[in-house]
């Protein structure tokens, strides 16, 4: 009996609970059997390269896509069976703009507030509040078509908050924005989390963003969660330090470094070799002792640092997040060209 009670309490504490969620598109598995939970009041992040399945996951949680398999509950409501309750509980900022740009900023917010059934007074008060939060008061009467990218993003965040959601989804909230705007949006997100006590789940492929904002981060690659913990714990998994060595020819050096007993993990990215080690400052002298002429390679530079999420990502997926992106950029270019041809 005892166990059941505890289980029930746990359930109410979790704002999001996902079990074995899977999405297939014509046989292609975009999200592969993922399970996780998000606590009340938490900022939870999904970090992953393009095509990892982040947006697909969010769309399933937001009731816009039907899962192929598995279960998900938001605030205790099932995303398949209790769509309307789920929709009432969530706010969402999509990866691509979802504003009516023939309406003004104010009208977009008003439209949203009415759709979510806010009464006249609440509407008026809340629109002012959220506009203040994202500092768009004096742009409220301008058509959205005349907004900059950053202003549109801020308006969308404001809109996502209009109806006092319990959970806010932010799909790549700062994609393509300049660093200054990005930092401002980070501040809004933190403010929301603290002032309005909103649980936030965001996706990103910026390491700093996940590190700075998220209490816990799930690393997602090819539709699978390959690691999930606090940024600090994730970095601790690697333990100690990272030594990055620029070397030529790297293939040869790689074979040799691999044999050292003090190297916990090794990987190579072009001419840079990364070693995960304990007490890095003591290992650099060991590296220097190698007779480079005899070994047949030349060390060009050595860099010692604490692991970042970038290193964690490399550790778990065997590639940098930018590797995945290069091919995606190619893909984007192709679709762009495709569009012009039409």
């Amino acid at each position, binding site marked *: 009996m005892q166990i059941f009670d505890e289980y029930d309490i746990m359930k109410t504490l979790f704002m999001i609970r996902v079990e074995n969620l899977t999405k297939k598109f014509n046989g292609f598995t975009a999200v592969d059997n993922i399970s996780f939970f998000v606590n009340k009041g938490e900022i939870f992040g999904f970090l992953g390269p393009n095509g990892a399945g982040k947006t697909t996951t969010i*769309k399933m949680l*937001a*009731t*816009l*896509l*039907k899962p192929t398999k598995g279960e998900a509950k938001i605030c205790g409501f099932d995303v398949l069976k209790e769509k*309307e*309750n789920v*929709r*009432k509980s*969530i706010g*969402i900022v*999509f990866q*691509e*703009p*979802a*504003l*009516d*740009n*023939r*309406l003004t900023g104010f*009208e977009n917010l008003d*439209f*949203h507030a*009415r*759709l*979510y*059934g806010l009464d006249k007074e609440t509407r008026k008060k809340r629109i002012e509040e959220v506009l203040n939060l994202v500092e768009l008061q004096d742009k409220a009467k301008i058509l959205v078509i005349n907004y900059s990218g950053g202003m549109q993003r801020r308006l969308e965040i404001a*809109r996502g908050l209009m109806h006092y959601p319990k959970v806010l989804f932010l799909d790549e909230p700062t994609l393509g924005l300049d660093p200054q705007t990005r930092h401002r949006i980070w501040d809004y997100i933190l403010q929301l989390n603290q002032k309005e006590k909103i649980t936030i789940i965001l996706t990103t492929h910026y390491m700093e963003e996940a590190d700075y904002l998220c209490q816990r981060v799930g690393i997602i690659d090819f539709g699978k969660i390959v690691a999930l913990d606090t940024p600090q714990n994730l970095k601790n998994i690697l333990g100690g330090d990272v030594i990055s060595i620029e070397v030529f020819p790297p293939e040869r050096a790689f074979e040799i470094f691999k044999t050292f007993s003090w190297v916990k993990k090794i990987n190579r990215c072009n001419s840079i070799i990364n070693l995960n080690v304990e007490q890095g400052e003591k290992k650099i002298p060991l590296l220097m002792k190698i007779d480079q002429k005899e070994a047949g390679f030349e060390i060009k530079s050595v860099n010692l640092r604490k692991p970042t999420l970038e290193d964690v990502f490399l550790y778990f997926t065997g590639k940098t997040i930018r590797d995945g992106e290069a091919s995606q950029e190619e893909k984007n270019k192709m679709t762009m060209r495709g569009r012009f041809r*039409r």
Partner: protein
Amino acid sequence: MKSNNLETIYVMWLREMKRFLRAKSRIIGTLLLPFFFLLAVGSGFNSGFSLPGAPPGVNYLNFLVPGILGMTMLFSSMSTGISVLWDKEFGFLKEIMVAPVKRFAIVLGRIAGGVTTALIQGILILILSLFLGFKMVNLPSFILALLFMFLIGIGFIGFGVAIASKMEDTQGFSLIMQFVVFPIFLFSGAFFPVINFPGWLRPIAYLDPLTYGVDGLRSSLIGFSQFPLFLDLIILLIFGSLMVILGSWLFSKTEI
């Protein structure tokens, strides 16, 4: 719950109206084509010309105006229905789809907005045609004509929503215009009585719902028709209901 649906319909209507009133060029653009038809075709036949199949003494402009009115309603309604596709393209559809409201209420709201804007355009065309010399039988006939315009509007907006829900992107848009909308217009008997079609073409005209819309408009505005008034009404009512149901159903199944 009920009031929530009404609010949804209202807010969708409001959005449609705001966008419509702001798109001045769109209003003028959609009025221009029917106006040119009235001017070029309507005045091309002089009053002495008698149209086979039409009662003698009916001036061709008077015969043409209801047809052009039907055309205005058709084009305006189809473009509102298909505008679901533009919402898809510009992402706004996601905002609508994720809201905690009934999808059929969203479709009804779009229909309410679309019918209003189409009626405004239809009435403007009617007023323009009065200046060109069009003569209505009497004022009640105008009320009856409004009813027909309303039914044409509902049916074709529903049809447009249904088509748009099945399409992925805006690529097929011009294809739909050329191979669906124009044939519906051309086979509706807007230019001459349907009985003037050769026998093998007539079934197509009879299958075209706009035929009954134009016939109903003609019957109410100039007192000349081929089918009984109630037949026109019943067929348009059935067509309208079917399309609203079909449009709502396909729209509610859209995944984005």
